[in-house]
């Protein structure tokens, strides 16, 4: 079916043109009346993805990320627009497409809840009609890289979140899909688990040229995995490009919060501006690209006695706000 390490076929694996999705939302007014309003979850999105890309899809909650992914995988029908995945139309060719893609939802599992992990894999082998040699090879490889052996015979309901996510990833890739759609795969995981998952995804993308669309809230996911980033807000793509450019152009400020031994006038340090002073506490804004946190802390410590400090980094909302603000 699909030989590992390279697929023949069109270079363009995902194509969206002016995709829209409008939902009817009903609200109860009084005892019987219902008021209907329309919500544009997706208001005209266009982009293409080439084979082998690893693309990050980011945006605040409610921006339309999940809706887009649902339209790409055939779960949802677009209100209008053109969508092709692997040359299939997800709406009408759902089953054919399903055979060639893998989907992982971060918050829900694709596995069978009360069966051992191994049994889920077996069932998937039959559902996707995976040839025995492909199945064995994949199972062995994923089992080793994701370290599934210790819990492969445990019922899924007894697995920890990290173990379950590893199981879900393996399950989604058993049939060697050409594209992998991931919806918040690292949500709720600890640092070690996240690192392991990211490593695995990078490897899959490089070794098998599996195209990956990764929806996430976590900027670290993007930083470590994706060269290309799609930023979506209010149902529209407001940025499509590589990460380095985003940071350089729209990089948001980090904030260093210092608790001094005693109240002092605003500290002056090159590369940082004092945004707020409240007694012994001061908030300093700076750009990580221009000055490292360590350097700033050293500079501040040289000018005043620091009792405690904390650093907050910009989150995706900040970045999006900046991009949106300048759009």
């Amino acid at each position: 079916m699909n030989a590992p390490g390279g697929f023949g076929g069109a270079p363009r694996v995902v194509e969206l043109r002016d995709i829209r999705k409008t939902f009817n939302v009903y609200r109860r007014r009084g005892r019987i009346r219902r008021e209907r309003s329309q919500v544009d979850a997706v208001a005209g999105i266009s982009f293409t993805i080439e084979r082998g890309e690893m693309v990050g899809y980011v945006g605040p909650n409610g921006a339309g990320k999940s809706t887009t992914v649902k339209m790409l995988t055939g779960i949802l029908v677009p209100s209008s627009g053109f969508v092709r995945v692997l040359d299939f139309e997800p709406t009408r060719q759902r089953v054919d497409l399903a055979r060639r893609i893998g989907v992982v939802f971060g918050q829900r599992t694709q596995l069978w809840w009360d069966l051992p992990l191994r049994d889920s894999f077996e069932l998937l082998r039959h559902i996707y009609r995976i040839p025995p040699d492909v199945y064995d090879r994949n199972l062995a490889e994923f089992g080793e890289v994701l370290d599934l052996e210790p819990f492969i015979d445990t019922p899924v309901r007894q697995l920890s979140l990290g173990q379950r996510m590893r199981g879900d990833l393996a399950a989604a890739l058993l049939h060697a899909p050409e594209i992998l759609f991931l919806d918040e795969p690292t949500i709720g995981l600890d640092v070690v688990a996240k690192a392991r998952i990211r490593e695995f995804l990078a490897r899959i993308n490089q070794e098998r040229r599996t195209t990956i669309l990764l929806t996430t809230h976590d900027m670290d996911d993007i930083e470590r995995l994706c060269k290309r980033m799609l930023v979506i807000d209010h149902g529209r793509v407001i940025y499509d490009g590589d990460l380095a450019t985003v940071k350089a152009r729209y990089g948001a400020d980090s904030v260093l919060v210092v608790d001094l031994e005693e109240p002092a006038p605003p500290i002056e340090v090159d590369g940082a501006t004092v945004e707020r002073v409240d007694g012994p506490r001061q908030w300093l804004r700076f750009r990580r690209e221009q000055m490292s946190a360590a350097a700033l802390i050293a500079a501040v410590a040289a000018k005043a006695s620091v009792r405690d400090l904390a650093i907050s980094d910009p989150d995706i909302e900040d970045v999006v706000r900046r991009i949106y603000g300048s759009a």
Partner: protein
Amino acid sequence: MASRAGVYRRLAMSRVRAHFEYRVSFALQFIGAFLLNFLEFIAVLVIFHHISFLAGWSLPEVAFLYGSSAFMFKFADMLMTNMDRLPTIIRMGTFDQVLTRPLGTLGQVMTGDVDLRQIGAMTQGCLVFLYALGHVHIEWTPERVAVLGSMLVSAAAIFCGIFVAMNSIAFWTTDAREVANSFTYGGQAFTEYPLHIFGVWMRRLMGYLIPLAFVNYLPSLYILGKGDPTHTPVILRFLSPVVAVAVLAVAGAIWRVSVRHYRSTGS
């Protein structure tokens, strides 16, 4: 094609295996299901304590209807165990997963669970039916045997079709759940007694519009050699298989339209 059926069989068997994990509870519920349905039949016995003929039908003849209905309905109910949970499946987002797999949605939902405890209920219906067979007066001919066989198969098919059609409501609204019960479980109650005891409008709506009259009443008129006080054409007594196929086709169409609606409106 064959491999597809094989996949569905595997999915169903995995559910069966999962149920056997809870052996004691399973046994209790098996017995419970049997008792529950037996207690319902007692109502029929109480009725016949006072009379010998209900609307012209004797106890074994009513038992013939009651047993065939209960037996085939519980069989359909067993196949449709998971279908009943469709509102929960939709609410929890599990149906989205169903849509990402390279299998039909209806097959996946049906094989999502198979409740073998219903066999207890089926057994009870079967016993009542066997009692009836032993006590009614039937002039057996090859044609009658054929009609009896097709009656049972058609009954199960019609009930399954009604289950699918009614439960499709879940894709449209979460609230109207119980309306489905009126026609599934209500359908069983309706077919446990001779059709002509019901008022004209009820007969027309539940007997012919939702073609429950074809489940067992009409074929029984032929098998048991009984007259029809409602004077329906004799040909109807042989049309159960045709009606069953039609019901399944309509149910399948309703399902498809409903899934399409779900995919357009999301959750």
